[in-house]
């Protein structure tokens, strides 16, 4: 396999006081790959996603995305480069309708700022229409087109997760970070989610997936990275990782 490297993480570190949440972790994600990130609670998975999306800043190490160093960039700049994410505890804009949430995801493709919008400069209506059309298409992709004009808080939890994915897709990401997308979903919804991720991969999007649903992880991911107490303990195809002694020990709590 000679696929191009999309993201390279080198010796990344992050500590909170004495706790080393992420300690010298390195791995790569190739173009079009679905990479899963698993590990027991408190292993540092969400912290790592926060570092990748600029939500928090690494203490050391490098993150290289399409040959650009991004470890010191801010969230919105990272989003502009093509990394979008969802959140473990769903972060929707509950003060907006379903479609408006996705329209915020389309933010980067618009250009008019406060003054331009206030004065309705030429191109305003056109830009608004284009953004709304695109947002409705993303809702179609995740199957929420019918709920477009409802308040986002009125959706059941599973659909809120899908809405978050639609919003992230609207950023036109090259890499999508999904933080426990299957948490709180029933088995049928999880199955749909797996299919959705598969379909999106065919559209040349790569994924870094954090989840506790092992069936989903083993089914859809190309490679799995296992973290335990901030350190990487395994990295490879699902079958290999499943047999890894250190991984089994970490999950069962034995000394390796």
């Amino acid at each position: 396999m000679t696929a191009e490297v999309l993201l390279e993480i080198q010796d990344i570190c992050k500590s909170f006081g004495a706790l080393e949440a992420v300690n010298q972790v390195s791995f790569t994600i190739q173009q079009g790959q679905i990479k899963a990130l698993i590990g027991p609670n408190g292993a540092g998975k969400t912290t790592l996603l926060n570092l990748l999306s600029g939500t928090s800043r690494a203490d050391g190490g490098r993150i290289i995305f399409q040959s650009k160093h991004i470890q010191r960039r801010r969230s919105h700049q990272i989003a502009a480069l093509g990394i979008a994410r969802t959140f473990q505890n769903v972060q929707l804009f509950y003060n907006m309708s379903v479609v408006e949430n996705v329209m915020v995801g389309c933010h980067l493709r618009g250009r008019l700022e406060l003054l331009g919008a206030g004065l309705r400069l030429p191109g305003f209506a056109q830009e608004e229409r284009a953004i709304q059309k695109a947002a409705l298409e993303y809702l179609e992709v995740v199957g929420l087109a019918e709920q477009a004009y409802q308040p986002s808080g009125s959706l059941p939890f599973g659909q809120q997760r899908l809405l978050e994915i639609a919003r992230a897709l609207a950023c036109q990401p090259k890499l999508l970070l999904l933080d426990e997308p299957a948490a709180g979903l029933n088995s049928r919804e999880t199955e749909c989610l797996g299919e959705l991720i598969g379909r999106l991969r065919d559209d040349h999007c790569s994924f870094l997936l954090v989840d506790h649903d092992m069936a989903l992880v083993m089914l859809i991911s190309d490679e799995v990275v296992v973290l335990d107490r901030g350190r990487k303990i395994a990295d490879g195809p699902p079958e290999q990782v499943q047999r890894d002694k250190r991984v089994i020990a970490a999950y069962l709590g034995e000394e390796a």
Partner: protein
Amino acid sequence: MGIVALLIASGLVALLVKNAYYISIFNFIAIHSLIAIGLCLLMGYAGQISLGHAAFYGLGAYTTAILTTKLGWSPWLALPAAILLTCVIAYMIGRPTLHLRGHYLAMATLGFGMIVYIVMKEWLSLTGGNSGLSSIPALSIAGIALDTDRRFFCLASLAVAGTLLFSANIADSRAGRALRAVHGSEVAAATSGVDIAGYKLKVFVLSAGFAAAAGFLYSHYVKFISPQPFDFKFSIELVVMVVLGGAGSVWGGLIGAGLVTVLGEALRNFGNYDIIAFGAILMLVIIFLPNGLTGWMQHFRYLRRSRRLAVTPSIEELK
């Protein structure tokens, strides 16, 4: 459509209200609502609080007063100068504070408001101190002097309509959604590509500009200024206007400015005790109408709509 209704209502006021005192109250409502509408964008959309907007209002008023009385500028030249100066100062306050999360802007603007008030009172050679600046020229458009309450009201109501239109356009745009997103969830807004600190700063500077424009109108309407209308108490009154009217809609600024201005006139006989009434109103509104009057009205509209939605599918089922 609301704006057309507002213009018609203003026209009726200008034609039918005979008492000059009542028209002067409408003028003050118009001036105050310019500030309150900008503050609505800042508070209701971006979720930031300023406790110093009276100072921006004062900066606009004093800048135009000084330029027109001491340097003999035309008011129409002084207007952009007043807005520009105020916006630059707001930028200098907002730039360092809005990068921080939390209510640092409230603290910074609180301190700034006090500094501006002291400067107005103490810099005698420039501001005239407590005795203020007088004989500020009236505005005139195409040779018509806006020197009566009624004529001034025509300009003031157009200014309010323009500001409302401008702000409603923003609210319903990419930038307005970005602001509401910042209010809804900062991390999610940032990871969706919204430059949150940048947007907070832009809307803060914009709202300061609106306040400066209001100060300009005040100066050339009253033709005399002193520090007192720009004190800390007025900053609080502005926040009360926004909270009472409802920060979720730019119309909240107009409604809140109307109510608080009329109330201020009604409470005049109580002297300084009126602040107690404002405090009580602020508490009651926060407890019973957390989204203000416009939020309360929208809630009713929303209830009606959701009831309609609940009925529709059952008709489908009957078929």
